[in-house]
């Protein structure tokens, strides 16, 4: 494998029973890049992640560079409000050293160095995972992923439960982390806006590869139609590109 290639996927096929979820998918991910995986609901984005993590059986080849250490941020957790697992207990599953746990919490913006924030961080550590807000839970999940000292972060965007402003700051956080650490980031998104702002390449996915490359080159009217159907209107103005789906 080429030194600059971190992940090479070729001829990937995933089937559930006889249902084809991913069909003949091939792409490479460069080191230190930020790749967005864009596609509608049911396009197989999360399934692709699960295959990349070796969680489900697949045909074809998924080859990671030998030095890869993956941190995975799942879309959501099924932790009921009644489960008495606190944030600190959750993070201590991965790291016993309390100072490292606090350090990571600081990195994800939960527990700044200001006095007020230290209190907030301390209170948060004793909070049950099930009662966190969507944005807080996501930061805790990112903290969990960072505790292993990964060089690749797989981030699955939640489809609900996180409001727009929280989502915004999560991506700002991810790009901040990328600058501070030596990280390659692969994230799943269904927001075109987010893809344009934070990714340097994009994989459009709808069971198979629809487009691949730098977002401004790869995403065009044709690929959007293949992703979202004929009704999508795609127009450019003032250097911003927008799309919307009719009837949704």
């Amino acid at each position, binding site marked *: 494998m080429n030194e600059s290639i971190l992940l090479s996927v070729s001829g990937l096929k995933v089937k559930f029973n006889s249902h084809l979820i991913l069909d003949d998918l091939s792409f490479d991910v460069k080191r230190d890049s930020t790749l967005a995986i864009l596609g509608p609901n049911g396009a197989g984005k999360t399934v692709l992640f699960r295959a990349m*993590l070796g*969680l489900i059986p697949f045909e074809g080849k998924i080859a990671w560079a030998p030095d890869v250490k993956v941190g*995975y941020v799942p879309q959501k*957790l*099924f932790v009921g409000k009644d*489960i*008495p*697992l606190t944030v600190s*207990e959750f993070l201590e599953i991965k790291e016993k050293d309390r100072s490292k746990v606090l350090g990571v919490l600081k990195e994800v913006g939960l527990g700044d160095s200001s006095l007020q924030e230290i209190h907030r961080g301390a209170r948060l550590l004793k909070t049950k995972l099930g009662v966190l807000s969507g944005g807080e839970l996501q930061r805790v999940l990112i903290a969990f992923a960072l505790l292993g000292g990964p060089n690749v972060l797989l981030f699955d965007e939640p489809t609900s439960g996180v409001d727009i402003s929280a989502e915004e700051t999560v991506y700002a956080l991810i790009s901040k982390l990328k600058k501070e650490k030596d990280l390659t980031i692969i994230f799943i998104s269904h927001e075109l806006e987010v893809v344009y702002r934070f990714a340097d390449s994009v994989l459009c996915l709808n069971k198979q590869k629809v487009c691949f490359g730098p977002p401004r080159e790869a995403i065009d009217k044709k690929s959007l139609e293949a992703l979202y159907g004929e009704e999508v209107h795609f127009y450019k103005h003032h250097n911003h590109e927008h799309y919307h789906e009719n009837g949704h």
Partner: protein
Amino acid sequence: MDTNLLFLIFVGALVGASSGYLGSFMVLKRMSLVGDALSHVALPGMAIAITLAINPMLGALIALTLAVIGIWYLGEKSEIYPEALVGVFFTASLAIGILVTPEPELLEALFGNLESIGTMDGLITIAGAIVIFWATRLISKKLLLGVISEDLATSTGVNMPQVNLIYLLLVGLAVALGVKFVGTLLMGALVIVPAVSAKNLAKSISNFQFLASILGVLSIFFGILIAKWLGISSGPPVVLVSIAFFGLSYLLKK
């Protein structure tokens, strides 16, 4: 208090603590009914052991181990939803157990009998409880992560099928240790009820596990005293005491 009663309370406390501790994970994994039904499997094992004149606890342990491997295999390798099969398989083993258990021993096998607990049983229980606490501590973080998200656990390199098997084998061991105290029909309650009560009160996982163990110990302690005092089978009072704690925990939660 005579030494025999002290011995029973000490051994019983170990049974209560280990069942409560393991039960805390059972409740988190939403496998409560599996824990309950599993205890029924002990009966045919005890019956065969009695017929062969070996320690019934050992017979129970062998039967439980086989059943646990069966459930684990179905859960991991097949598409079949295990809960329904567990219901069918375990009630069948209860029915068979009732048929093959010699009549004089049937009542004590079903509901427990303090008189039948000897020094050998005590030694087996001490050894078993040590194994349970030691092994469960070793796998507890992996188990916990698996409860929250199997994907997250597997992606961090945890071998979930292996962890699940070890856990279920430990539950089988705990049930085998408790059958003489509580009986095969009610032993499942000692795994589940203290843990459910503890969950009502717990503020953290470590707090939850500690409370579940303590409530298990207290249920056995008061249950044994009541059974001795009234001269009855030990299973029903032990379980009723644990249910009383559940009621109390429910009120305190509100």
